[in-house]
């Protein structure tokens, strides 16, 4: 049981995690969930924009760019043990 909650915005390119829950106001939550970010989904950070924000995440096969403020709404359990399956 980790004391510290991790957020999607913390993932560096190449790292992945599993969605625990989605926070935020209802409308935002629904939009994020429509993109496939529901509890249990594995998400991987793929690349950062040259300016640092947004970051593109691999979500259920699609590459979706989210800004830090939105990625910060998603609580995840980082996958430290397995290295990213589909990449370097």
């Amino acid at each position: 049981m980790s004391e510290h909650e991790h957020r999607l915005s913390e993932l560096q390119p190449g790292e992945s995690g599993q969605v625990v829950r989605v926070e935020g106001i209802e409308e935002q939550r629904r939009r994020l969930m429509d993109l496939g970010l529901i509890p249990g989904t594995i998400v991987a950070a793929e690349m950062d924009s040259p300016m640092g924000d947004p970051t593109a995440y691999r979500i259920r096969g699609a590459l979706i760019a989210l800004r830090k403020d939105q990625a910060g709404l998603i609580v995840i359990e980082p996958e430290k043990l397995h290295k990213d399956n589909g990449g370097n």
Partner: protein
Amino acid sequence: MSEEAVNPQKIIADAKALREEVGDFHDGFVESVYTQAAHIADEVVARPGEQHHFDFDRSLDRVLTSRTWGFPVMILLLGIVLWLTISGANIPSGWLATLLLDWVYNGLHSIMAALSAPLWLSGFLVDGVYLALAWVVSVMLPPMAIFFPLFTLLEDFGYLPRIAFNLDRAFAKAGAHGKQALTMTMGFGCNAAGVVATRVIDSPRERLIAIITNNFSLCNGRWPTQILIATIFIGALVPVTWSATASMLAVLFVAVLGVFVTFAASWGLSRTLLKGETSTFSLELPPYRPPRILQTLYTSVIDRTLIVLWRAAVMAAPAGAIIWLLGNVHIGGVSLAAHLVGFLNPLGWFIGLNGVILVAYIVAIPANEIVIPTVLMLTMMLGGAAGAQAGVMVDAGTHETASVLVGIGGWTLLTGINLMLFSLLHNPCSTTIMTIYQETKSLKWTIVAVALPLVLGFVTTATIAWVARALGLA
């Protein structure tokens, strides 16, 4: 009509009560949907060789969005598109010019003469209306026919969302939406199209910012002016071997300056007239796909051709009529044109331009393309140049244009530079203004969209003019 067995109101009441009991089931439902979807996808899709292309996409993305290469590649691509459009358009423009401005033009005059039409009528119709139409088509059509297919190819390929991805932070800091990157890029082809493209931005506030600042994207119609002036004034500053490169760089500089102004103006607007929250932004980056070149060429050329032809007919034709009238209607022995030019000369001088340029810009509100021809016509007419027919727009090569502007018009380097800047920073063309009104349905915002670039233009050119004079450079 059958009578309801159950009262709808009761249903609503029941639903409300049940809602309290059930609570928020949305999450669970979505989860069920996705679980089922994943299960089906597993059953139905076999993926033997996916890795290979997946990796290619990734590597390409790593480069196109990297800290070192992302921006240089974007600017390089912009430069390439600019170069291809301009050099590609040259020859067809020449052909069209010969066709429309020589053969058909002379042909029409012959017909008029054969019909014994009075001079004022043939002047008005052929020298005025027709000439403006012909000019817009020959100058406008070839570049658009190249730019938009190139743009669509990039779009098909999947690169455009990467531009939005790269620039989003800059837009967010300016209080705008990342997708403005796309509308801004579209504006390089045609500002009216860029304004329509803002429909992809949901939030009305951010959409307005994108609309109002779109004019700072240097549209196709202004490129000829930029290149001509750059060639004459900037190219002349350097040794001949470098002059073409220098002019291209100057134009590229103005285009990039426009991008910076877009950000600055968006920032300003979001702090003053259009304050508000930045909306949620999520962007899908589709996989790269090989574009269908021939198909794209065909559809975009057809689309663009129709638009340009429509614009020529509706906008440029009346402008041509007005130009002719300005040159041929005399009040107190002096043409209207001379009156206007004289009236606007002080203001023109104040901002480092002149009355001729200002009159040309007023007349050219319908279409940026006719600025230079109008300038030439006015300069020659008012300068009493031999062979200058009143009210007839002129098609001249670079050398002749240079000698007219400098020799007869008295233009200096300051005039050239300020004209390039003013061309970037002035009111949108009338097609764009109309489109803005249609999209916003607001007179207020349309006025802002017209006034903002104009004010910026005046301030910039005036500042440069006075600084240059203070430093003794002009």
